[in-house]
């Protein structure tokens, strides 16, 4: 067993309207930031899970995504194992 730092990135599916991204994009433009081509706003979920190994951690988190974290109708998700760690929490 070891502890894994996992990151889940959840984004609105391509093609779906992302009103928040639109407004943020517009705001950045009017603040004078040049060259912004696209903005999409999603969620990032950081988890620490105990699992036998990284693969097992990924499998677990994948099930969490499908069960709860992401909405399959409107969102895509991506799982990243950031690190294997056993250090104490701050």
């Amino acid at each position, binding site marked *: 067993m070891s502890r894994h730092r996992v990151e889940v990135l959840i984004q609105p599916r391509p093609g779906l309207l992302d*009103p*928040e991204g639109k*407004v*943020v994009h517009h*705001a950045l433009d*009017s*603040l004078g930031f040049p060259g912004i081509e696209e903005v999409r*706003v999603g969620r990032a979920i950081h988890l620490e899970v105990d699992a036998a190994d990284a693969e097992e951690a990924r499998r677990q988190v994948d099930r969490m995504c499908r069960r709860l974290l992401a909405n399959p109708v409107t969102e895509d998700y991506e799982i990243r194992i950031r690190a294997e760690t056993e250090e104490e929490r701050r």
Partner: protein
Amino acid sequence: MTIAVVTFPGSNCDYDCYKALKDVVGAEAEFRWHRTESLGDVDAVVLPGGFSYGDYLRAGAIARFSPIMEAVVAFAGKGGPVLGICNGFQILCESGLLPGALLRNEKLLFSSHDVHLRVENADTIFTRAYRRHDVLRMPIAHGEGQYYADAETLSLLEGDERIVFRYVDSEGELSHETNPNGSAHAIAGIINEAGNVMGMMPHPERAVEEILGSTDGLGIFSSLVEHLRSGPAAVTV
């Protein structure tokens, strides 16, 4: 005497504030469109509630960059009274006129009902019509109203009596159940150090006529108007 009510894209309590000031308190009120760069000749500014820019990103985060906000910041800097209600409070925090931030409600749900507020400081230009520890009833309606500030700021606010309203029960007692959003120290409204900028989450403009269920919010507007009538001339920005 003129009080400006600022309309941002997505403001939806601008008209309510305008009506409360004009029809109920009898003050001169005027709308100001967010794109205006100057406030003109005004004696006070109200930043009303609503969902400026849809509350996207964070409530108030984008509105604070509206052209008019520069004028509002300058106006406040010269001691002009500024009242931010709900989204207006959020804008004041985002723009640094008030300390802290408003996070999502503890239970993550939008919350809309009457709350009781205890007047903690009745010696401000917005609360002189009340007495200390008066209990007021008025509606809240927000999803991001959990007041947060670091410990140092909180103790500063406490020490300087800059917490103007706290959420309490109908008897005026603090309790976890009556804190509708998990705000630190049950804070419902605060004022800046100079005493001319106040922000609050509850809606006093919705409690100014019997038919609406309460008239407890009137005192905030009448205090302000009273202050302006007796106080210094307009600040022009």
